[in-house]
C-alpha cells in the first residue's frame, strides 16, 4: 500500500473577485522509500500541493475537496493540534530558504532538541546527543562544537544541512522538500542532493521533491509529476518522462532547457505564458499554447490516461477520438522536424 495517497485534491483561495483554484483535482501517491519529483513553472501549484499535504496552507487558502491519506490515516481533516503532532513525527519539511526556516535567536542545538523533546520522550541529555548525532549524519564538521552555534554562523549550504537534520529529527516517514537546493550554489546543490538521496536510502524515508529544476529531478527522483496550471499534465517514471515525454507541455519544457554539448542556435520555445489563476482556459489548460490543439481540447478537460508506463492528461492519447498513440507520436515528431527546419532556415 502506498505511504501517501492524495485523491482528487482541490485547493482554493477565496478572494473578493471570486474563488481561485490553485490546485485543481489532482491525485498522486508515494510509496515507502520513494522519491516523487513534482516539477512545474511558477504558479503551477506545486508548492500548494506540498503545503496542503503538511497542512500548512496560508489562509485564506483551504483544501476544498479530496482526501489525503498517510499510512492509512486520513490527515486532511484533522484538528490543528493533532496535525501538529503528525507534522513533526511523520512528515518532515524542508523549505527553499534555510535562513527563514531557522530561528536566528536560538542556537542550532536548541532548535533540534526542542523538536526531539516535543515528539519523543527523550531526556534533555539524550536529545542533545541525538542532535549531535544528526549533525554528524548530515555532514557538519565538528558537530559537538557547532551544536551551540547560531544560524548566522553557518554558511548557506551548512544551514540547509541543519534544516535537513531538523526534518529528520524523529525519523519521519515522509519528507516534503520544497525547492531545497534553489537558493544554493551549484557545487553545494550537488552535495545536498547526494545527502538527501543517501538519507532516504538509509532510512527508507519517502520524499516529495518539489522543484522547478529538471536536472535536480533527473538526478534524484524515481517518479515525476509535471504540473501545469494546478493540474497534473503527466506523471510517470522519471526516465520515461524525461526521455520520452508524452504531453506536449512536457515536451516543450524539456526542449527549452539549454543543455551543455547540445548544438543548436535556438532553443525550442513554448509561445505565451502560463495562464493566471483568474483565467484558466476551458478544456485542457494548455490548449491555447499547444501546437497540437484540436477541437476537443478547448471544450473538455482530459483525464489522466495510462500511456505506456506513464499517465498523461492529453486528448492526443485518447483512442476513441480516432487518434491513437502512434498517430500522436508521429504528430509530435513532425512538429519537432518543422521546428528544426525553421530553426535552420531562420
Amino acid at each position, binding site marked *: 500500500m502506498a505511504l501517501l495517497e492524495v485523491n482528487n485534491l482541490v485547493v482554493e483561495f477565496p478572494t473578493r473577485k471570486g474563488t481561485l483554484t490553485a490546485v485543481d483535482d489532482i491525485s498522486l501517491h508515494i510509496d515507502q522509500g520513494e522519491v516523487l519529483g513534482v516539477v512545474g513553472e511558477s504558479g503551477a501549484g506545486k508548492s500548494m500541493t506540498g503545503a496542503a499535504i503538511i497542512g500548512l496552507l496560508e489562509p485564506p487558502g483551504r483544501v476544498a475537496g479530496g482526501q489525503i491519506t498517510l499510512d492509512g490515516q486520513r490527515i486532511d481533516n484533522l484538528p490543528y493540534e493533532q496535525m501538529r503532532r503528525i507534522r513533526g513525527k511523520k512528515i518532515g519539511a524542508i523549505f527553499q530558504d534555510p535562513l527563514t526556516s531557522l530561528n536566528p535567536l536560538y542556537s542550532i542545538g536548541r532548535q533540534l532538541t526542542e523538536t526531539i523533546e516535543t515528539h519523543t520522550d527523550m531526556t534533555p541529555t539524550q536529545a542533545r546527543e541525538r542532535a549531535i548525532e544528526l549533525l554528524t549524519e548530515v555532514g557538519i564538521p565538528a558537530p559537538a562544537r557547532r551544536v551551540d552555534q547560531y544560524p548566522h554562523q553557518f554558511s548557506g549550504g551548512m544551514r540547509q544541512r541543519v534544516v535537513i537534520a531538523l526534518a529528520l529529527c524523529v525519523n519521519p516517514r515522509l519528507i516534503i522538500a520544497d525547492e531545497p537546493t534553489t537558493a544554493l*550554489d551549484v*557545487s553545494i546543490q550537488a552535495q545536498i542532493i547526494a545527502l538527501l538521496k543517501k538519507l532516504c536510502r538509509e532510512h527508507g524515508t519517502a520524499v516529495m521533491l518539489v522543484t522547478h529544476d529538471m536536472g535536480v529531478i*533527473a538526478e534524484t527522483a524515481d517518479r515525476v509529476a509535471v504540473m501545469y496550471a494546478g493540474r497534473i499534465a503527466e506523471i510517470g517514471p522519471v526516465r520515461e518522462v524525461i526521455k520520452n*515525454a508524452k504531453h506536449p507541455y512536457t515536451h516543450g519544457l*524539456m526542449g527549452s532547457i539549454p543543455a*551543455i*554539448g*547540445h548544438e*543548436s542556435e535556438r532553443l525550442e520555445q513554448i509561445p505565451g505564458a502560463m495562464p493566471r489563476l483568474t483565467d484558466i482556459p476551458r478544456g485542457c489548460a494548455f490548449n491555447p499554447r499547444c501546437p497540437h490543439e484540436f477541437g476537443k481540447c478547448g471544450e473538455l478537460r482530459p483525464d489522466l490516461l495510462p500511456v505506456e508506463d506513464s499517465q498523461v492528461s492529453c486528448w492526443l492519447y485518447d483512442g476513441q477520438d480516432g487518434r491513437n498513440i502512434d498517430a500522436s507520436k508521429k504528430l509530435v515528431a513532425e512538429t519537432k522536424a518543422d521546428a*528544426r527546419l525553421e530553426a535552420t532556415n531562420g
Partner: protein
Amino acid sequence: MADAPALTEAAAAREARRKDPSAMLKVTGLKRYFDVSAPWLNRVIERQPRQILKAVDGIDFSIGRGETFGLVGESGCGKSTVARLIVGLYGPSDGSIELEGRDIAGLTRKQMAPMRRRLQMIFQDPYASLNPRWRVRDIIAEPIRAFGLASGPKAIERRVGELLEFVKLNPRDGEKYPHEFSGGQRQRISIARALASEPEFLVCDEPTSALDVSVQAQILNLMKDLQRELGLTYLFISHNLAVVYHISDRVGVMYLGKLAEVAASKTLFTTPRHPYTRLLLDTIPDLDMTGRERMPVAGEVPNPITPPPGCTFHPRCPFANDRCRAEIPQPRPLGDGAIVACHGVEEGRIPEGPPLALPPKPEGLD
C-alpha cells in the same frame, strides 16, 4: 521585426565589424576593493585591523565586436562587481577598462555621459529594475530623451513603438504599467529600454535567473536574434553553466575575484583545464541520467575577506601541493587560446582526465 533591407544591411555591417580584429572592450588588471572595516572607534578600542574585501582582484579579458563573452562563477565570486565596474556604477580601485581603445575607467561624469549611450545594462530582477509608477512608454523613452536621440513627441512615440516590436511586444503595451506584465514580459521591457539608446555593448547580469525555463528560452532566443540583427556585443553573466554554454562564444570562469580560466565556449566545456572549472562542470545535475559517479567535492567558497594564501582554490583542490599553498598562480595562455591560472596545469602534473563526456541531449528531443 524590422524590414528586410534594414536587416540585411545590419547583418552586412555586423559581418564587416566581425572581421575587425580590434577588441570592443578590453579589461586590464581590473581591481575593486571594498573597505568593510568596523567603524574607526571600534577599530581603535578593539584593536582590529582594517578589513578589505577584494571583490575583483586583478582580472584581464577582452571582448571582440559582435561576440558574447560569458562570465560564470558561484555567488560572491565578484562577477556582478565586474558588470558594475564596466558600466561605471562602481569606480575601479585599479586597472583599466578600454572601450574601443579609450580608457573609460577614470572618466569624469561628464566625459562618461556619451560613453553611457553605447554601454547599457540588463539587470537580473525585472520586478525591481522598472519604476512601478511609470508607464512602459516613459520607461523606454527615458534614454531617448536623455541622449536626445529623437526630437518631438511623435518621433519618440514612433521609436518606442519600434523598440517594443523589437522585443516582440505590442506597441500599444506602452500605455500600461509594469505590474500588468509577467516576469518574462518585464524582462523584454528592460531589454527594450537598454536598446533605446542604440548601444553597441550590453552588460547582462543574470538576465534569466529570475525566470521560468520556458520563459528563459524565449528571452535567450530573443537576445540571440537581437544580436544578429543589431550587431550587439554582450557580456553575459550567469551562474547557470548550461545557459552560458548556449549563448556564449567565449567564457571566463571566476573564483574569489580572479579569473581561473578563459577559453572558447566549446573548448571550456569539452576540455576544462582548471580543477575549479572541472568541479563546476561535474556538479551540473545531468538530464541524461547516466548515473555517473561524481568527483566528491568537499568544502565551500572561502570567506573573501580572508582568502586562503597562494591559489585561493587550493583548500578544495584535489591536486594542490605546497607551491599552490604559497604562490599565487598567474594566468598563462595555452596552445589553443585558452588562458588558465593554475600551477598544476602549468607544470603538467594534473592528469588530463577524460575530457568530460558531454551528455547528448535526451533522446526523443532532437
